[in-house]
C-alpha cells in the first residue's frame, strides 16, 4: 500500500495533481486506487488536500493514516499536518513557498517548484513540477507513466506545457 497526500492552498492545482497521480496508478499501472479531496469551502481560499491510496488489494481505509509521501505547496498546510509529516517516508516541498520546515520532519526533499514553473511559463504549473520530482524521488512510477496520464486527462492546449513541467521536476536532482 502507498499513501500519498498533496497539500496546498485553494487555487494551486492540488486536486488536479492528485487526480493525475491517481489516474496514473489506476489506469496506467492497473492498481487499486482511491483518491479523495478535502477543502473548507468552494471559495478559492483555505487549505486543500488530495489523498491517494494505492494498493494491490481491495482498499478499506479511505483516509491517510500512515503516509508514505507528503507533498506540500503552502506553509500553513504543512503546519497543519506536521504530525503526519513526521511519520512520512518522503516529504516533498515547494521551497519557493515554504520557508519554515520544522526540524522534526525528516526525509525532506526540497524543490524550488514555483520558480522552475515560472521559468517554463507561470507559477501555476508548480504542481506539475512537483509531480515530476515525486516520480524521481520515490520511484513509485516512471516519468513516461505520468506523461501518458497527462495526455489522457489534461486538455490539449496544456499538455505540452505540463509535460515540460514534469520533466523539469524529474530532472531536478534530489537534495
Amino acid at each position, binding site marked *: 500500500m502507498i499513501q500519498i497526500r498533496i497539500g496546498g492552498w485553494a*487555487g494551486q492545482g492540488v486536486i488536479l495533481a492528485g487526480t493525475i497521480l491517481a489516474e496514473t496508478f489506476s489506469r496506467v499501472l492497473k492498481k487499486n486506487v482511491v483518491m479523495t479531496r478535502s477543502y473548507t*469551502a*468552494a*471559495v*478559492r*481560499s*483555505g487549505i486543500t488536500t488530495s489523498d491517494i491510496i494505492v494498493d494491490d488489494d481491495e482498499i478499506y481505509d479511505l483516509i491517510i493514516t500512515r503516509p508514505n509521501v507528503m507533498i506540500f505547496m503552502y506553509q500553513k498546510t504543512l503546519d497543519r499536518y506536521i504530525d503526519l509529516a513526521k511519520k512520512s517516508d518522503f516529504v516533498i516541498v515547494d521551497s519557493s513557498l515554504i520557508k519554515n520546515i520544522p526540524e522534526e520532519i525528516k526525509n525532506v526533499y526540497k524543490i524550488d517548484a514555483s520558480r522552475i514553473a515560472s521559468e517554463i511559463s507561470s507559477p501555476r504549473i508548480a504542481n506539475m513540477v512537483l509531480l515530476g520530482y515525486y516520480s524521481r524521488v520515490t520511484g513509485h512510477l516512471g516519468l513516461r507513466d505520468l506523461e501518458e496520464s497527462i495526455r489522457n486527462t489534461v486538455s490539449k492546449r496544456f499538455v505540452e506545457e505540463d509535460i515540460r513541467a514534469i520533466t523539469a521536476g524529474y530532472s531536478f536532482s534530489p537534495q
Partner: protein
Amino acid sequence: MITSRYIKENYVRRLPSAFCPGCGDGQILNAIIRAIDHLKIDRKDVAAVSGIGCSAWIPSPYLRVDSLHTTHGRPIAFATGLKVANPRLKVIVVSGDGDATGIGGNHLLHAARSNVGITVIMVNNGLYAMTGGQVAPTTPHEAKTTTTPYGNPAFSLDVSRVVAAAGASYVARWTTWHMNQLIRSIEKAIMKKGFSFIEVLSQCPTYEGRMLNMDHIQMLEWFKNKFREDADGIYKIGEFVDIEKPELTEELEKMIERVKK
C-alpha cells in the same frame, strides 16, 4: 478620508478574507463599511443578515456588527423578523444574485411589496459562484456555465426592474467600478424608511471571468465603459426608485397603539 488602517481597526473582524484574488466582494465590504462610517450610526444598531454564497460571507464574518448568517435564499425573511421585532435596528441584508433571486426570489418580492424597512444589497456576479459557477437567474441568454455547457437556454432577470415593480421604496444599481456612487447609495438606502434595494454588479474572476472570458481587471473596465446612467436594460445604472410610502414596521407600531387603547 478613511484609511485602510482605520477600517481594519474599527470595522473588520478578521483578515485575510476567504475571497479569491481580485474578487469584487472585498470591494463591496469596503463600500458598506465606508457608508456606515459616514453615517455615524452606532455600530450596535446595525445588524447584518446574509444567506449562503460567496457574497454572503461579506458581512459574516468580516463586518464587525451583529451578524446572522442564515440558510440559502432566506436572509430577507430572517431580516424581516429581526427588523419587526426590533425596529430600532438598521438591518442590512447582503445577498448573492442566486441567493436573492434564485432560491430566494419570493422573499425579495414580498419584502419589496410589504415595504419593510430593511436594506438589501444584492451582489450580482451573474452566476452561482460558491458552488462552482452554475447558471443563475442573472446569467445572460446563451452564456456557458458549468450547468449550461451548451449555452443558457433561459433569459436573465432584470432584478432591479422587478423589485421596482413589486413596490420597493428605493432601488438602485451600481458596479464595483462605481465605488463612490455605491457608497453614497448605501448611505441613502440605510437611512430610507421603507424597503431599499441596491444591485451591485461585481466581478467574480474565478467563474464569471471564465464565462465572460475576462479577468477581473477587464471586468472592471467593462463595468466602467458599458454600465452607464444613460444605457439601457441591465446596463443602466443609477437610482431607479426613490419614493416615500408607509413602512411595515411603523404601520405595525401604529396598529398596536390603536388596538391597545
